[in-house]
């Protein structure tokens, strides 16, 4: 970022401003040149007289003995400490680098083992039967919805789709731990959050088909859902741009002192974007109540995480920004629920951001425009789909509590499947939005140039009606 220069005399004043430690070293009579010195200094700035401010910053180890240097003193344990902007810091005479990684990776919080059995001495937030059954049912619904929409795209009925197969636990369990007032800023692989909140299968289908019942008025690609009333902000395809938006929403909630937080989801690939780093930094500085939930599913289209970053995943990045973080088994619905529940309380009560890295696997392709067998083995995909399936783990657990059965399972599955097929049929038949929706909502009121352009389009259609799609009403 370029140094902010002003008029020609300001170069000198800028230089001196950097070095001046006290306000009355400010330069010139014009107020806007004098920098207001905020508290970036240690608690008790020494009130010495005409000391040379430059010396204070150039302390070398050889000068440690001379106590007359500014800002240096001994603490109780006889170790030399130095006051720098940002606080006291202890010296060390050893030349020691912080290692680029710990020997041990950060452990992953999980509560149910691979077979769905509760791990002894595990800490988790208890869920009621009602909530647990809803979590599981919604996971099943999401799985079926994804499969059917994917097939519909393959059959040519939909133009595009992106599944969340393998990540159902992250979607549903995290949503279950939030309240309806928490505002969601999704990436594009979190339709489960909307599903939990009450978005109907018909509403999903309407958006995918872009018909006139779509809340987005047919303007976006499939899976770019958005719902004002469910506090789920419209998906914007650009990666990680929703992270600063979420911080802004959290800032708004903080100003209004609401008992709610902002929650934003992103993938492992999204953590490479500049917006990720800036948003985390901002959230920490503003003390904004926002949950950053990273779905680390191992793949960003064809880029594995080993080519995405060299850190121990995403959880360690939180510390760099002063953010409390946790790594969770994303395929363990109970652990996800507990982690998000706890994090949300912390975020709101303490007004701080929390980073949650949910480890999982992207079982499906990146989208219908991708064939992931080109860059990973079909065996790997199959293993994760069968052996590490989040649904079967959670199902074992709720069955062991007597809350579920085979009968309930088959009932649910056949009901959802039937509903999905009906929903597809209705959505496909529904009329597309009117042509005027192409020009509305660009501004609050269409300005003259857009009205003119709409007129031109309509004139063209009138003279070439055979070239205009028949299912778009004028």
């Amino acid at each position: 970022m370029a140094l902010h220069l002003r008029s020609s005399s300001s170069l000198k004043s800028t230089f001196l401003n950097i070095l001046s430690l006290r306000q009355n070293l400010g330069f010139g009579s014009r107020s806007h040149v004098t920098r207001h010195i905020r508290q970036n200094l240690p608690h008790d700035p020494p009130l010495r007289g005409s000391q040379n401010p430059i010396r204070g910053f150039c302390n070398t180890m050889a000068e440690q003995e001379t106590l007359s240097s500014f800002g240096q003193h001994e603490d109780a344990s006889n170790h030399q400490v130095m006051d720098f902007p940002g606080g006291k810091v202890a010296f060390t005479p050893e030349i020691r680098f912080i290692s680029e990684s710990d020997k041990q990776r950060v452990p992953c919080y999980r509560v149910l083992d691979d077979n769905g059995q509760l791990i002894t001495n595990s800490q988790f937030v208890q869920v009621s039967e009602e909530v647990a059954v809803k979590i599981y049912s919604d996971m099943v619904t999401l799985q079926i919805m994804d499969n059917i929409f994917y097939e519909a795209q393959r059959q040519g009925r939909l133009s595009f789709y992106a599944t969340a197969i393998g990540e159902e636990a992250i979607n549903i369990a995290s949503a279950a731990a939030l309240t309806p007032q928490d505002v969601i800023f999704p990436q594009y692989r979190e339709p489960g959050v909307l599903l939990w909140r009450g978005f109907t299968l018909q509403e999903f289908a309407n958006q995918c088909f872009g018909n006139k019942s779509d809340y987005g008025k047919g303007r976006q690609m499939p899976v770019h859902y958005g719902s004002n009333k469910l506090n789920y902000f419209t998906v914007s395809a650009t990666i990680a741009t929703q992270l600063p938006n979420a911080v802004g929403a959290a800032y708004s909630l903080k100003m209004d002192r609401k008992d709610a937080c902002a929650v934003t989801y992103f993938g492992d690939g999204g953590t490479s974007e500049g917006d990720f780093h800036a948003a985390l930094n901002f959230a920490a500085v503003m003390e904004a109540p926002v949950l950053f939930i990273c779905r680390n599913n191992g793949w960003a289209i064809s880029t594995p995480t080993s080519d995405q970053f060299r850190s121990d995943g995403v959880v360690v990045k939180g510390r760099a920004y002063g953010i409390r973080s946790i790594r969770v088994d994303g395929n363990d619905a109970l652990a996800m629920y507990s982690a998000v529940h706890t994090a949300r309380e912390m975020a709101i009560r303490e007004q701080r951001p929390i980073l949650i890295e949910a480890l999982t696997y992207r079982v499906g392709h990146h989208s219908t425009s991708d064939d992931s067998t080109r860059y990973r083995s079909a065996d790997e995909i199959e293993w994760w789909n069968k052996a590490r399936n989040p649904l079967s783990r959670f199902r074992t657990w709720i069955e062991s509590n007597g809350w579920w059965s085979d009968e309930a399972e088959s009932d649910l599955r056949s009901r959802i499947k039937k509903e999905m097929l009906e929903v597809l049929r209705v959505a496909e038949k529904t009329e597309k939005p009117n042509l005027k929706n192409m020009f509305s909502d660009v501004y609050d009121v269409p300005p003259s140039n857009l009205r003119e352009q709409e007129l031109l389009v309509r004139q063209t259609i009138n003279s070439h009606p055979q070239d205009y799609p028949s299912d778009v009403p004028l």
Partner: protein
Amino acid sequence: MSSIIHGAGAATTTLSTFNSVDSKKLFVAPSRTNLSVRSQRYIVAGSDASKKSFGSGLRVRHSQKLIPNAVATKEADTSASTGHELLLFEALQEGLEEEMDRDPHVCVMGEDVGHYGGSYKVTKGLADKFGDLRVLDTPICENAFTGMGIGAAMTGLRPVIEGMNMGFLLLAFNQISNNCGMLHYTSGGQFTIPVVIRGPGGVGRQLGAEHSQRLESYFQSIPGIQMVACSTPYNAKGLMKAAIRSENPVILFEHVLLYNLKEKIPDEDYICNLEEAEMVRPGEHITILTYSRMRYHVMQAAKTLVNKGYDPEVIDIRSLKPFDLHTIGNSVKKTHRVLIVEECMRTGGIGASLTAAINENFHDYLDAPVMCLSSQDVPTPYAGTLEEWTVVQPAQIVTAVEQLCQ
């Protein structure tokens, strides 16, 4: 809401004095007339404003002052009439403060806007008055705090996002284009983004290439945003207030060299229409379209032109997106000659778009090709002498008018 949109219709008495007189008389006469009919014109302005629709022709605001110099000077008329004098950055600050008082959802975010008061002092004193949260100092990441503003706007706040220099907002281009401009549309109208993005831009005095950018040329294509450029304390305050009240995202372009302009502005609440151009000097021979700092170069050239017997009509277009083609069109139909004077680069600037729009819409009314004077397609040099020649100078404007009016 007791704001008055200043667009008086009946200012014919003063208009006639502007037509082909020498500069000295121009300077003195309006103030005398202002004195006597000021109160009357207020009433006219108030009642007419309610009947007037957008773009209804020539409008002269009540205290029409011909500014014959490149930089506005203190008015000779300092009678005890209503209004108070202030500098442009103070006018911006006053507008911002009034809106923050009026609506608790208005907040400010940017680098050093808090206790430092902003690098050009537009937000001076606001942090003390409204608190650190409402006037937020952010870390250095334009994309992030612009994104933050957009997220906050979608949840009900009305942020005013300050770029320390317009050039830095290039780092925020992604958020401005992909989220700010688009989300109202792609969400089907479910979410509005009433942000104001503002900051100083333009060529200053030896600020170097990176700090002398004209971002209006890069932003003009983004659908969904509005762009306005202020040039006087009066329209600075009016546009700031209107931008904050607008439901659309608005980018307000200020100019680094205009912050210390002094003018007397009304005491009462007023806003300026965001889509409207400002008639600076009515005339008959040629229409000169300009905005921001170039307005003052044009007015300086106008002085010379008037001495040479020309009668230029000067319009400060103010609204860069969309163009006020109504006011501009009426002017073209009257004078049949157009000169555009801008600070943007030759390629792809506001002038280029405006030339295309005028040619397309008013081709039949033109007696000569539209001429556009712009800066060269070079990064702004640091050397003062070179920098001076990258911006259009009054002498070039005079030559261009003479050429067009042959």
